[in-house]
């Protein structure tokens, strides 16, 4: 079907991932949207997917999808795609999304477009808009050749829209080939999240390498608390182990669109900019006057973050009458 768009549904922390609902809503606007749901899912998953645009759901609750990484889901997708030939298949730019889209594109010998911000169905194919190089370019790309077009979609590209609808459900068989059971998940460890969720925060105070060490993040936590905001971090800082991954903002972290983004000791690497350029107001503090972040800040202070932030905290306290 020329306008059949499939969305790979992900379950994160026992809920359908927001990115899934965003992509489904967009797909339902563009054509006929259907979802593929493989593995453990909450009881209301099917209804949720329907509510956000899926007119059909391909479903399996088989343990193989939970216990073995990537290969079982790809095998199931290859079978389904060969049978139904959707025009487009959407994955979120998440861990699972990347792994599946990569393996699937090689299996089908088809291309995949990554980091998609928007797309339209056009000329029997798809035209995707990509904020390339951290958003310094806005490019469009397409995929040539026949076959399902695979897109990896950025978080928060679309709005999730609920509607009143039900969906048909097709139960799919788990792949029987023992070769899909090669990569085993033996344990799942949850690391406690600190502070309020980044996704919905109106104010984000974010730190980068300029903070010099993990302890200095306490200063940002204090500032965030005074402003009723959440704390974020760059990939470099998460990789260095100063803060947990849940705080990471950027191309491989979260995409955020707060009213205020306060970037402290962040140079503004393309990877990071990609995750926060959509912020309404950006304030940046950095020692380096050449830091790329200053090109995107509404207010930039070239200075020592260890002087400016404590002063800011004092000012806020004063104005709050605290």
């Amino acid at each position: 079907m020329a306008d059949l768009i499939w969305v790979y549904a992900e379950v994160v922390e026992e809920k359908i991932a927001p990115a899934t609902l965003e992509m489904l809503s967009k797909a339902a606007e563009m054509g006929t949207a259907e979802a593929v749901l493989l593995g453990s899912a909450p009881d209301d998953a099917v209804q949720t997917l329907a509510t956000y645009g899926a007119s059909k759901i391909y479903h399996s609750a088989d343990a193989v999808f939970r216990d073995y990484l990537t290969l079982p889901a790809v095998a199931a997708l290859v079978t389904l795609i060969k049978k139904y030939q959707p025009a487009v298949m959407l994955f979120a730019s998440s861990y699972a999304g990347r792994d599946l889209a990569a393996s699937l594109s090689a299996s089908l010998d088809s291309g995949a477009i990554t980091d998609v911000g928007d797309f339209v169905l056009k000329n029997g194919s798809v035209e995707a808009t990509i904020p390339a190089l951290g958003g310094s370019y806005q490019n469009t790309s397409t995929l040539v050749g026949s076959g399902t077009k695979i897109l990896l979609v950025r978080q928060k590209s679309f709005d999730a829209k609920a509607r009143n609808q039900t969906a048909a459900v097709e139960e799919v068989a788990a792949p029987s080939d023992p070769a899909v059971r090669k990569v085993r998940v033996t344990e799942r460890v949850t690391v406690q999240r600190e502070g309020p969720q980044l996704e919905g925060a109106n104010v984000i105070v974010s730190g980068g390498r300029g903070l010099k060490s993990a302890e200095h993040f306490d200063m940002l936590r204090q500032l965030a608390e005074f402003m009723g905001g959440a704390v974020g971090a760059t990939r470099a800082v998460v990789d260095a182990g100063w803060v947990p991954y849940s705080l990471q903002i950027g191309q491989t972290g979260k995409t955020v669109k707060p009213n205020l983004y306060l970037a402290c000791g962040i140079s503004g690497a393309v990877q990071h900019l990609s995750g926060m350029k959509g912020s309404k107001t950006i304030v940046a503090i950095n020692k380096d006057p050449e830091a790329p972040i200053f090109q995107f800040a509404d207010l930039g202070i070239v200075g020592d973050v260890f002087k400016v932030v404590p002063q800011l905290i004092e000012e806020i306290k004063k104005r709050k009458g605290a």
Partner: protein
Amino acid sequence: MNVIICAKVIPAGSVIIEIDPATKCMVRKGVPHELDPAAACALEEGLRLAEKHGGTVTVITMGINDSTIGIRNALAMGATNAVHILDDALAGSDTLGTAKVLAAAIRKEAFDLVLCAAESSDSYSGIVPGQLARLLGLSPLTFAREIAVDGRKVTIKRQSESGYDVVEAELPALVTVTSGINEPRYPQLKGIMAAKKKEIKKYTAADLALGPDQVGASGAKEKVLSVGRPPARKAGKVVTDEGEGGKLIADFLAELKVI
């Protein structure tokens, strides 16, 4: 245990990468290059595994001539030998084309483990390793923050949204690493001198039996249609702190009614 490292060499971090509107590709020629810091983490992990278990570490780079400096750096860090796939015909390859090139070169080696960065620091597409694993029929273990090998079993801690998963598979396997996995070593003078004598085997697309229908711009399934700039964000104000920086921010925020 023989390890292969996918060692991408990219424009140096200080370079502002531009896209040539004529070719619609990133401008790479003549720009200073370096071993991708993310690939350096993969190489460091490979060196540690080889030090612990014995074996060789081979770096494989698909890149233009400017990549040589990055390959020499990898050899100076301690890689045993290098493979450089160098051919103008490969310009404009998309992710799948790149994966096919790397797969063809890797198939010529004997190996137990392939290590890659989870994503490169210039394009961040993050899918070439997964495509490569599929083409080579290797078990893919991704986003590793820790790797251990015990006999023929490889176990990783895989970064997840809520923490991490413990994931295992039998060798041969392909593992992608996150940048937090280690601090790559700096080449020492001894390593730099030794690197000058180490072999860099060179391949063209023809050596790998890959034609224009599979690689390069002609073989790419992904075609860039247009290259443009986004609507400009209204220019902001940059002020040097002279003791009032914090106050300036507070005033600004008060104006915006954020505080």
